[in-house]
């Protein structure tokens, strides 16, 4: 089967973000960008499915500016077969992203789309569920184990109180959680090979998707700062403070 994996270019998870002084957003100029960590897990899962003979082809899709091509190259170096860049300078909302993915799925006919459960920039946690809804497919979110067996997938999900197992009919959308796998590092030979793999280019307009946002961002502000940093000498002093100053125990 064919597996489609969207990969998002986001500010690297190690970077301490800065809110722009005019409150219009977060500074993204001259900031290190990387693939959303959950998307690395999705690519890894798809590549492992290919290595196990379950999947024939893995397609990495990124929706973003020209530079998102670098994110696709990373996916190709990890083992994806080809890429599709949906080029736009707009910051698409999850609903518009899901519409792009639906249009691509209609064209490519994958049997599975593996989406990161959330992107670490807008923390929306919506794209996978929305894509499944628009396609009329089943969804298996927050997956920690995925087993494919004749026409369906058995998925273990991370839920609030523990784990849950469901069976979804294929085609389906799976969203990857932290423990699904540990993504590999791309080897140098594979990075070189990835440069030769094809990347097609399209745009939201080509896919018939309206980019107009539904949410107007009025301001982006820094959260109130926490006044921390005080130290205690020893355990006795700590217990003392907790009992008599903070009065929390």
């Amino acid at each position, binding site marked *: 089967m064919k597996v489609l994996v969207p990969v998002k270019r986001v*500010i690297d*998870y190690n970077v301490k973000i800065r*809110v722009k002084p005019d409150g219009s957003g*977060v500074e993204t100029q001259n900031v290190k960008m990387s693939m959303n960590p959950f998307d690395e897990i999705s690519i890894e899962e798809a590549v492992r499915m290919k290595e196990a003979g379950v999947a024939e082809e893995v397609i990495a899709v990124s929706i973003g500016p020209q530079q998102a091509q670098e994110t696709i190259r990373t996916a190709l170096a990890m083992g994806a077969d080809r890429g599709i860049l949906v080029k736009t300078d707009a910051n698409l909302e*999850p*609903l518009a992203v*899901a519409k792009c993915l639906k249009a691509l799925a209609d064209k490519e006919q994958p049997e599975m789309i593996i989406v990161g459960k*959330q992107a*670490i920039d*807008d*923390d*929306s*946690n*919506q794209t*996978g*569920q*929305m894509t*499944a*809804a*628009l396609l009329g497919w*089943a*969804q298996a*979110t927050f997956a920690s184990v995925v087993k494919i067996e004749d026409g369906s997938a058995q998925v273990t*999900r*991370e*839920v*609030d*109180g*523990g*784990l*849950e*197992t*469901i*069976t*979804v*009919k294929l085609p389906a959308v799976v969203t990857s*959680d*932290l*423990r699904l796998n540990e993504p590999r590092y791309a080897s140098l030979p594979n990075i070189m090979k990835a440069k030769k793999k094809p990347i097609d280019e399209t745009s939201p307009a080509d896919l018939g998707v309206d980019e107009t946002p*539904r*949410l*107007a*961002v*009025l301001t*982006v502000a*820094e*959260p109130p700062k926490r006044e*921390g*940093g005080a*130290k*205690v000498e*020893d*355990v*006795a002093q*700590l*217990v003392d403070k*907790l009992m008599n100053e*903070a009065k*929390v*125990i």
Partner: protein
Amino acid sequence: MSVLVLAEIDANGVVPQTRNAVTAALAINNDVHILVAGSDCAGQAGAAAKIAGVSKVLKADDAAYANGLAENVAELIKSVATSYSHVLVGATSFGKNVMPRAAALLDVQQISEITDVVDAETFVRPIYAGNALATVKSSDAVKIITVRATAFDPAAAEGGSAQIEDLASAGETGLSSFNGRELTKTERPELTQAGIIVSGGRGMGSGENFAILEELADKLGAAVGASRAAVDAGFVPNDYQVGQTGKVVAPELYIAVGISGAIQHLAGMKDSKVIVAINKDEEAPIFAVADYGLVGDLFKAVPELTSEIETRKSAR
């Protein structure tokens, strides 16, 4: 127009985060209805009707809703949503699974994990692991919203007397089926509801070493949590995880042990009332947010803390 809250239910009744969502709904409009979808859910509907401030309960009783499968519940929300100005749910794993699907069926851009209601169209939500707060205004006809429970006090569980109305099922989609659930067994309070949390990080070294945190937790009546690093290392299950990609908590007291304080962990606990950090690395970023920092060996400090608390408590 009224505001609808989707209840999350379990065998015991209505899950507490539902009541935080009711408070957020009441901040939008004082006519709040609750949708209870389940199988043989008369008991849960009765519990929902008692929540203070709720004027009507819609009960959809069908085997299709027995296990909260997103495909079925989203269709049900779609069938009623256009009679409401807003549909809200607590941002639990249930709410996060179901609501975006319903939003897409309605062609609505969901607003995730709101922490404040500015007006009926404008909401505040954290982005970048809570390192920025975005104020967004929705132009959609129906607003679809998930609510971060720690930002709103729960509505009282008792005091209401809403009428219960039956709602027709939207049917079984047949796309997915439920096989089973394996819940972590614990006598301790649930992380998101606990007044005190003791959390361990990579510094714990192993899963076995969490035993010293459990002893401390039991002394305090606390829940046990963990950082993503500890989950990644396989020390504890994922449902222990506090952080951007785990649970968001705001207890009265949060004790971080052997946790360095990565951005993604701070996102899940920095709204706690009092934070204690125990770490041997004096430069660890966790100390910057801690009200009380103790630099030292956790394997010595934690047992000492447990016995010190025991001594002082028995002296009171």
